[in-house]
């Protein structure tokens, strides 16, 4: 699903975020990205949805060679990737439904499709009944679930989450993890960067540890720290 071969990323200010990065994430995987701040996790994520381009090396996402695609195909690529951030990034002027429909409208879906699918995805993240609330009327956990619903609405093959529980209390964090696990069971590949030790240790998923721009550990059922 996601393959990187000898990927280097050097930013214009001289910082080298990744040096000789190799990874292979399969379809249906649930992967935790762990490692200290500044290790290169966010750069890795940005390379997947091509917000950044590598200085060297090759990246494939769902069979697409990201080095070769034109900027028009970048939109296509992103329609196949759902992205969730620590700070939710909802549009404050839109309701819950509108925030989710927003992603469907970009794909020129009909109003009927939107009316049919938005309630389904709200069910999936447990937000039925909050359709007409605005983001500032929701708790952090609820806002993050809206963000997940928006990321899922177009049925992407991969869901990328950059510290999705970073701003949440433990209870809300676990709710988010339950949602993500359900999504993963439906076949969506999940890549989640996190600093949450407890979650990683309890969930027993594949763990990729990044340090100083390289993969230093890749365990199938790993824990947060080196066992």
């Amino acid at each position: 699903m996601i393959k990187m071969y000898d990927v280097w990323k050097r930013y214009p200010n001289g910082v080298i975020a990744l040096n000789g990065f190799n990874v292979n994430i399969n379809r249906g995987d649930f992967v935790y990205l762990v490692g200290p701040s500044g290790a290169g996790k966010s750069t890795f994520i940005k390379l997947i949805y091509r917000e950044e381009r590598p200085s060297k090396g090759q990246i494939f996402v769902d069979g697409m060679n990201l080095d070769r695609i034109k900027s028009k195909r970048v939109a296509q690529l992103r329609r196949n990737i759902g992205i969730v951030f620590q700070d939710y990034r909802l549009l404050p002027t839109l309701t819950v439904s509108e925030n989710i429909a927003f992603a469907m409208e970009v794909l020129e879906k009909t109003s009927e499709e939107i009316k049919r699918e938005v309630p389904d995805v709200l069910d999936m993240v447990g937000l039925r009944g909050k359709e007409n609330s605005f983001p500032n009327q929701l708790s952090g956990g609820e806002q993050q679930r809206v963000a997940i619903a928006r990321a899922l609405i177009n049925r992407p093959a991969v869901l990328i989450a950059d510290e999705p529980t970073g701003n949440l209390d433990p209870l809300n964090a676990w709710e988010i993890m339950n949602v993500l696990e359900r999504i993963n069971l439906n076949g969506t590949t999940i890549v989640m960067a996190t600093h949450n030790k407890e979650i990683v240790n309890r969930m027993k998923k594949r763990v990729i540890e990044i340090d100083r721009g390289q993969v230093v550990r890749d365990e199938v059922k790993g824990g947060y720290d080196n066992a």
Partner: protein
Amino acid sequence: MRSITLKRHFRDGIRNMARNGSMTFSAISAVTVTLLILGVVLTLAMNINHLVNEIEEQVEIIVELADDIDDERLADIGLLLNSFTGVEGITFVSKEEGLEQLKERMGDQSYLLEGLEQENPLYNMYIVNVINPQDVQVIAEKIKGVGDVIDVDYGEGYVEKLFAITTWIRNIGIVFIIGLAFTAMYLISNTIKLTITTRSKEIELQKLVGATNGYIRWPFFIEGLLLGVLGAIIPIILVLVGYFFLLQKVSGDLSLAFLNLLPFYPISLQVGLILLGIGAFIGMWGSLISVHRFLKI
């Protein structure tokens, strides 16, 4: 693009304007103020140009002819003068008519001219009107070379000064209007840029969920167009209503009768369309330029 998408772009453009009320207000105000100034200056400049044209139109060439030529030669000279490039038309004034006109002009003192009918000191003449008053000097020079022409008078010295002044007035008008138009563009596009900068997050999100650049531009394009058009409406109304009352005032006041202003139509239509066009153009252009900066994500 699907029609539902176009409909959504309109909905988004209008919704964005409504939900960013204060920004929308300041953008429309910027358009209104600058277009109002531009509209007033434009109307003034068009009228000044009109007045200057009228003054220039009064320039004509008087061609005095020798006394001893027959009618055939007279007609030949007429044809020749008419054939010069830049000549609009000629009028023949016989020495008798010339004397009559002179008497009329002298009014009460015309008795001084009595008795001159027998020994008319005037010449038969052609009055030559030219298409472009600025060419008068060149054409006059040519006419001087025609046989049986005794004298050519077009107000030499005076005409050159007049044209120097009118050219100067026109140039000032043009510089002023161009300067103002650019100021308007700069001001308006800057304000629109500001309204869009506050929405960079939204653009970023659209890109993240896979919107193409074209898709993202549309609502902004529509919004810019609406901002420009809405901002143009008030200046158009004010300028036209103001001009209408100015015309009434001028036509009702005998001391201002020399001010021959342009009639309400077509100047009202011209100024209205120009302001609307500039508003719409600047609105769209300003927002497209500004969106462009955010599309590189």
